[in-house]
């Protein structure tokens, strides 16, 4: 398969110690090409092009109102829920190269393959078990054994299993905020998404719950392709492999996280990550 947009070169590993943990070649899971977006008459994203590397965490950073959440919500067509929104450009979901925002694409196609976790935990008014099973049930999974196994696996991956295994049939609203967010992660993981979108997943959580979720993202990045929006620069630096810096609806800089944080090409990026504005 061909990459729709070339990934920037990895930083050269220190010559003395080749980085054996990283795969030789990184492929793109998605390619954004010249994406623009309007809320009604107001344009909020301007010609954005960047790849999403498969099996990596990509962080989207930038000041409030820079369009990073809007950008993220294009991937699963969340903007379709509200009237008057308009997309231009392409977002290709690889390997088939389906154009997610193409006018002929049924939004259900990307949504069935892409999972999302929102800023605030939003568990359904159902039991813990049924929350995790929800995505499987609407994909037609009926078998009790398959459901049970997948619910347990997802809760384990979301590091919640030990805390809830004895009360799977209790209401999801009996959980704490941090647990609810991990439940929402488990719910997103259960259908085995090819791409996982995280929209400031820790912004409503206290520092301990945040640390839990960050560890979790690190753990998940071995298995899933993740795009995460974050306000927290340290978080972006800690958990991501690639970083995209947005400002006023434009993509200012995209590259391997190490480079963006240590040798940014743009002064605006430099100013933002050193806290001079934002």
């Amino acid at each position: 398969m061909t990459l729709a947009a070339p990934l920037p070169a990895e930083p050269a590993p220190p010559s003395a110690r080749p980085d054996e943990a990283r795969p030789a070649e990184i492929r793109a899971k998605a390619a954004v090409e010249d994406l623009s977006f309007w809320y009604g008459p107001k344009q909020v994203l301007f010609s954005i092009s960047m790849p999403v590397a498969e099996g990596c965490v990509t962080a989207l950073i930038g000041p409030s109102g820079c369009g990073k959440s809007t950008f993220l919500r294009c991937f699963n067509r969340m903007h379709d829920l509200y009237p008057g929104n308009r997309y231009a450009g392409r977002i290709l979901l690889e390997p088939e190269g389906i154009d997610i925002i193409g006018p002929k694409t049924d939004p259900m196609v990307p949504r069935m393959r892409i999972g999302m976790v929102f800023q605030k935990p939003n568990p359904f008014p159902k039991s813990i078990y049924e929350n995790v099973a929800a995505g499987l049930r609407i994909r037609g999974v009926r078998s009790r054994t398959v459901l049970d196994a997948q619910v347990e696996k997802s809760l384990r991956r979301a590091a919640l299993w030990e805390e809830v295994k004895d009360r799977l049939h209790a209401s999801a609203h009996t959980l704490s905020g941090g647990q609810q967010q991990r439940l929402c992660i488990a719910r997103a993981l259960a259908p085995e998404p090819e791409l996982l979108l995280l929209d400031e997943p820790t912004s409503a959580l206290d520092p301990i719950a945040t640390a839990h979720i960050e560890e979790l993202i690190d753990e998940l990045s071995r298995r899933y392709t993740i795009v995460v929006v974050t306000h927290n620069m340290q978080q972006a630096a800690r958990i991501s492999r690639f970083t995209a810096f947005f400002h006023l609806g434009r993509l200012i800089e995209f590259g391997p996280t190490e480079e963006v944080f240590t040798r940014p090409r743009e002064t605006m990026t430099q100013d933002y990550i050193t806290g001079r504005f934002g």
Partner: protein
Amino acid sequence: MAGSLPPADGVLASGIRPSPEFLARRRLKDRIMRGLLFAAASLSVLVTLAIVYVLASESLAFFRHVGLVAFLTDTQWTPLFAEPHYGILPLLAGTVTISAIALSVAIPAGTVLALYLSEYADSRLREVVKPLLEMLAGVPTVVFGYFALLFVTPLLRRLFPDLPGFNMLSPGLVMGVMILPYIVSLSEDAMRAVPDALREGAYALGYTRLQTAVRVVLPAALSGVTAAYLLGMARAVGETMVVAIAAGQNPNFTFNPLEGAATITTYIVQVSLGDVAYGTIAYQSIFAAALTLFLLTLAFNVLGFFLRRRFREVY
């Protein structure tokens, strides 16, 4: 009066301090308002208590003459006959049957309509349909009664040729339409109060619109929707005009919707409009009937209270 400014050349802020009289006036106003609000709140409680007192005391007089067992088990209600029977069952059967017909129309139709308005209709359509529905709620019940008697009953006769002029089916159906606006309006409010975050979560997971509406929004709004059902039920049980006009005034112990029957409310309006002497058992019997009605709606309200607590979702 309200405060004295600090000297213009002051360096540190010394605060704009209100005078003690100003604060005292404020406190007084606050106390007066609190008293007025308390009085308003007490009034509604007192009226309720007064109604309960009148119902209970007159009913007590009634039950001195008629045994509770006879009241609850006798299958005839003939207080005005030479040989009177005081069994509430025929009236209760009429009330229950007609209310059940009304609710079996209003609950499914109301829920579907509310889901449609909240989850499917765009805002322009909603702004047209909701006021129209609320107009339906403004139609006087006597109009619904004659509508049932003179329009719906003849229509139903084409389906059931033996249908008597007074029957329970026709007023039941019309009453269902009558309480529909209450159920739609309240359920729709509850559904629209469900946060969009929940809908987004469902769509992101691949739910269709229908699945989102039925599997996420409806359960999340359940406490409000239950409250709407219970209000509709209370309206149906207490409704008088429609049943008095279209169901007949003949106490009849039957659950067959194709027969006519009096309800509790029909009996009350019939007797209180007639020339029953004050203090007679017949007079007291309307209080016993009203008390039964009151306990019935109270039971539904208590049930609703517990259901709401059980299913409450906090956002």
